């Protein structure tokens, strides 16, 4: 016999389930505010902490090159009402330049390699080979950055400095931008090695996304293009890549974000040299993220807290760069639309 609607047991079950509805609804609503709250908290703390440094360092912070904590045992001076050690002077230009240089070089190197990899995996390799290779590339994205940094400083850096950089430095013509490839090649720690390792770290991010996107491109337009006499390369350039362009932009920006914020690998490989922009691509340097991680320890010994504050200002600049990249990517993606369909749909 079926229980009727009047049956009290039905109503009780119903109430319990209504309560479950509410629990899900409110749980999800509250939970989804936590990332917003967390992000706001982080940004607010960053601004509060950076404020004294912004007041004292002024606009020079962006252009000056020294990073001098001053004499922490000496007198305390007040500038604009902010206490800081005598002789302290902070300029973040080398850090900003280093961050942008390494990330841009990394993306410029990684993007074509990632596209080539994705194309080889989807169109050239037989399935039995493509599957494990794709998995391998995906896994590469998940390796801890400190392990990659260890490999960079122990193996690839010295290898490049001994066998590759001297060849390049000796044979490159001394004209135009190639001049940055001239000069002493160092021991494998520096700008170029950092960029190459960062590139290796972001290739998997771009490549695995692009591979997934390529696999979603329908066969029909590609077959049509081949029927019209397109070569493989022309199909890739005219059909496959334009079809998923916005997705590739998104993945590239994700990679760029990772490179900008990457800390451990760069801290290990860059040489962590403060105070100057590297004159050549081989020179030692540092980035904002690497500076924060390597300087926070000693900054904590500054009794006035000004060193910590200056690191916050550097961190704020990094956060602003990361946000700007994110916004630009959104603008690009929304302008080109979700799927750019270059073939007529009529």
């Amino acid at each position, binding site marked *: 016999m079926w229980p009727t609607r009047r049956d009290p047991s039905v109503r009780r079950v119903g109430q319990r389930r209504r309560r479950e509805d509410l629990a899900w609804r409110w749980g999800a609503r509250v939970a989804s505010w936590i990332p*917003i709250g967390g992000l706001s908290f982080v940004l607010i703390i960053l601004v509060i902490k950076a404020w004294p440094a912004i007041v004292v360092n002024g606009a020079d912070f962006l252009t000056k090159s020294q990073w001098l904590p001053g004499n922490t045992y000496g007198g305390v001076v007040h500038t604009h009402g902010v206490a800081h050690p005598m002789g302290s002077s902070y300029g973040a230009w080398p850090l900003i330049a280093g961050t942008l240089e390494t990330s841009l070089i990394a993306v410029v190197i990684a993007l074509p390699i990632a596209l080539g990899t994705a194309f080889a995996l989807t169109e050239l390799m037989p399935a039995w080979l493509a599957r494990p290779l794709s998995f391998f590339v995906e896994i590469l994205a998940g390796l801890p950055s*400190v*392990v990659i940094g260890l490999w960079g400083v122990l193996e690839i850096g010295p290898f490049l400095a001994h066998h590759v950089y001297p060849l390049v430095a000796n044979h490159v013509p001394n004209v135009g931008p190639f001049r940055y490839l001239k000069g002493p090649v160092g021991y494998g720690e520096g700008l170029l090695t950092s960029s190459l390792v960062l590139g290796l770290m972001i290739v998997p991010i771009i490549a695995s996304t692009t591979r997934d996107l390529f696999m979603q491109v329908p066969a029909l337009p590609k077959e049509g293009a081949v029927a019209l006499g397109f070569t493989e390369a022309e199909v890739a350039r005219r059909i496959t890549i334009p079809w998923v362009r916005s997705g590739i932009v998104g993945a590239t920006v994700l990679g760029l974000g990772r490179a*900008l914020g990457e800390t451990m690998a760069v801290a290990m490989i860059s040489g962590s040299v403060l105070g100057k922009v590297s004159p050549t691509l081989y020179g030692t340097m540092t980035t904002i993220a690497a500076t924060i991680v390597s300087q926070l320890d000693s900054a904590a010994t500054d009794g006035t807290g000004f060193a910590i504050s200056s690191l916050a200002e550097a961190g704020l600049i990094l956060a602003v760069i990361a946000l700007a990249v994110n916004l630009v990517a959104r603008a690009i993606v929304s302008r080109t639309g979700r799927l750019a369909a270059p073939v007529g749909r009529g």
Partner: protein
Amino acid sequence: MDQVKRTTPSDHSYPSTRRRRMTAVIFRGATLLALALVVAPALWLVIGVVARAVPHWQWNVVTTLSQGTSGGLENAIVGTLVLMAGVAVIAGSIGVLTGVRLAELSRLRSGAWARGAIDILAGFPSIVLGYVGYVALCVGLHWGFSLLAALLILSLMVVPYIAKSTESALRQVPTSYREGAEALGMPEGYALRRVVIRSALPGIVTGLLIALSVAGGETAPLLYTAGATNNLPTFSLLHQPVAYLTYYVWTDYNQPSDVAHYVSNDAALILVVLVLTMLVVARVIVARTQRHAEGTR
């Protein structure tokens, strides 16, 4: 895609001009070169980690406590596992619920805010999160180097991974499931739990595993929130530092003693094995479920 290749005429007059023929050959060569440029260094990297650690590997590393630049890694292994478990609970619940909100209940416009925050957090520099954890939680709130500070910062960092994979897993559940559940008179929450989330579970678990592997491999947000210790983790959330594997890789690789290098290399190997295991499990789950899934891919 195979059809594309098969329909390519193979006689030598195709493509028509020499330049196009050259481009086609160069293009193919370049893509294979690109693949090699990714795979070769990656293989070198993984083999390098194994080759550095294995010659000096001793199993008691797993069972003895660290003495800083010598000794074992038991405290770091347990610490990393504790951190991962904590992240699974905190970031897991927040991330899954956020994903549910984004996929199922986002009739409200404020879902856009959550989505924006998650997108930004996904690309946010982890060291800046670590800095804020140190300044605000460890120093500002007087928590000291502590498990709770580390967990909160780490969770904030990986919530986007979980929320996004949950959202996309939920979106792949066929609408007919939801319609069927509604037609049977299931209330929304009940249908969500018994029908929708159940069929999206493999995707959710995969996202969780990926997030945990990321959390286990992080260094920058932990250095100034979890601190460092040679002891096993305690049960107190505050004022007690926690050891973790990445710390030993980072601090011991350039210490002036061979033993320290062994510690660093061993920690790197254990980390890689741990992370790869989780990623492989995640992959197996995906492969298993895709075989049975209808219509996806």
